[in-house]
């Protein structure tokens, strides 16, 4: 073959590659990106259906109507019955401001827009669809209201769920906003430095502090060769960096259980070096940290970057939930749930059922185990330790008369200078009906003092009122 022909063929092959890459990109876009792109609120096509179809209602687990639409002249108007209460769950749907929350994620369901298959398209032409589906949530309206009431005046988040089924009973994130008066409040919300639009429960990344010790404890339990005894002197030096216990208090001779009960920092800092970052990281992974949690709302990934090159001080501070560890409240409630549910982490559910305009249930979300957090034996051990935390340790403020409560408190140092107060737990410990995570953002208090009592009240209310 002569040179000219060879070069011509090179050019031809080059052009062929360009065109094939076009085809590949187009297919890739259609298969993986199109769904997300279509949902963008700037897509005017979304609003065309809006004007023809009665948007479905959203109701709580007991059938209470939370949001609904009504005909208003030619178009439909959306009403949100409880103002701020559901701002981060239901979100809003306005032509000017777009959609967020379930209004966005379940837009097609609420408008009864079926997947575009030939049959569906034909059906839609013959019998035009005029009414959307109703969403039945797992939320208990009373508990939701109660949770928000307890958090009021603070920043932070509460998530309460059923550890066995994954149903979320209440999910609050403060500050919030009122979807009904969005137009008037828009500018204020946009300028608010506390970002009311952020759903802290699913997307707020917090330093966990001592609540993360449950992960370190499980890692310790899974390291049989580890010497579980330790003499706590109130602080310890790792690589020349001093880690202090809360208030510099020396706990004396402690084993693993005592260390968790008293939330002994030196213990975990010292032991974590022996356990190793990979072991702790592996446990964290099993409890969905570093994993994306599939949920009915968008979620942020919690992170513990143990695969990076971490120094000894990094590992030590991670073991007590400081340093490079960041978690979402939703992830923390999943950890509590997983321990309560014999080590199995279930998928959190927010939308229980989809109900057609005729009243039949067309889709029901069922319980699904998403990860094996720990084996039954280990889960039982850590549970018993957490019961001790509430009985006689840092979490006594969460104890309920006549009910065994398992929990762990946390007081997380962070860059703001004011610590986050944490509590995670579940009750009753041996057959849990409710798991909870409470975080009070930049509250400056300890988890045992402020977060634990809030959790206690919600757990009592849930055990008394929520119907499964």
């Amino acid at each position, binding site marked *: 073959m*002569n040179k000219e*022909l060879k070069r011509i063929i090179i050019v031809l092959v080059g052009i062929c590659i360009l065109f094939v890459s076009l085809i590949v990109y187009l297919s890739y876009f259609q298969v993986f990106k199109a769904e997300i792109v279509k949902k963008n609120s700037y897509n005017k096509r979304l609003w065309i259906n809006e004007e023809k179809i009665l948007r479905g209602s959203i109701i709580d687990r007991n059938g209470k109507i939370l949001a609904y639409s009504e005909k208003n002249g030619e178009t439909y108007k959306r009403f949100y019955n409880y103002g701020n209460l559901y701002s981060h769950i239901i979100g809003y749907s306005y032509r000017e401001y777009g959609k967020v929350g379930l209004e966005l994620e379940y837009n097609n369901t609420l408008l009864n827009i079926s997947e575009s298959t*030939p049959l569906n*398209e*034909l059906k839609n*032409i013959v019998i035009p669809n005029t009414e959307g589906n109703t969403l039945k949530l797992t939320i208990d309206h009373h508990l939701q209201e109660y949770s928000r009431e307890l958090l009021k005046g603070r920043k932070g988040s509460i998530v309460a769920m059923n550890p066995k089924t994954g149903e979320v009973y209440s999910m609050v994130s403060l500050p919030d906003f009122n979807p009904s008066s969005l137009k008037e409040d828009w500018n204020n919300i946009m300028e608010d430095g506390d970002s009311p639009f952020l759903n802290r429960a699913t997307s707020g990344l917090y330093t966990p502090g001592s609540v993360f010790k449950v992960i370190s404890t499980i890692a310790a339990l899974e390291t049989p060769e580890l010497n579980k005894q330790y003499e706590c002197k109130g602080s310890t030096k790792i690589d020349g960096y001093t880690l202090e216990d809360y208030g510099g208090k020396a706990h004396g001779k402690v084993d693993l259980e005592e260390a968790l009960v008293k939330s002994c920092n030196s213990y975990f800092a010292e032991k974590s070096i022996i356990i190793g970052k990979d072991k702790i990281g592996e446990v964290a992974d099993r409890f969905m940290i570093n994993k994306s949690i599939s949920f009915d709302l968008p979620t942020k990934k919690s992170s513990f970057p143990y695969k990076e090159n971490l120094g000894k001080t990094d590992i030590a501070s991670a073991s007590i939930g400081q340093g490079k560890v960041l978690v979402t409240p939703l992830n923390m409630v999943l950890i509590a749930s997983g321990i309560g549910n014999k080590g199995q982490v279930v998928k959190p559910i927010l939308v229980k059922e989809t109900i057609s305009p005729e009243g039949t249930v067309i889709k029901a979300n069922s319980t699904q185990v998403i990860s094996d957090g720990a084996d039954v034996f280990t889960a039982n051990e850590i549970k018993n330790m957490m019961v001790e935390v509430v009985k006689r340790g840092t979490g006594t403020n969460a104890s309920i008369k006549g009910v065994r409560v398992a929990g762990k408190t946390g007081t997380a140092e962070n860059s703001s200078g004011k610590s986050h107060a944490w509590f995670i737990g579940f009750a009753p410990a041996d057959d849990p009906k409710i798991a909870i995570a409470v975080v009070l953002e930049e509250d400056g208090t300890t988890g045992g003092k402020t977060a634990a009592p809030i959790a206690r009240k919600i757990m009592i209310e849930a055990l008394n009122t929520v119907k499964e």
Partner: protein
Amino acid sequence: MYNIFSLIFKYIFIVIIYLFILSIIRLIYLDIKGIGTVSLDNSIYLKLINRKDSLPFKIKEYYSLEDFVSLGRGNENKIIIKDPYISKNHLKIVEDEGNYYLEDLNSANGTYLNGDKIMDVVELKNGDRIRVGQVEFLYVNRE
């Protein structure tokens, strides 16, 4: 009403477009297969002038010439063309000192060079047209 039409038609359109593409690819494929091994390198050959698909028998677009080439309907020939108007042994082209000579082998319908029936051995020049039966070739010599 229109919607139903549009819905049905969109599938038909896609089917037609792809059938169209396929039929063209198939034609191109047949074309390439027909050309055989002749490429830019080969400088002496016969090129078919007729449109290949207008002839109801197997034929190639190019036949490269060596020192001796015979053409006819019979299977013993170098170039076999199953045209009923071509004789079993119709003609031959022979090389001598770099020149190529065309000779008719007493065929029934004769061989035509540039429109004239040849009676004797003729020397071929680049660009000559050779007609046998229904087939017409162009003689190309680039040396």
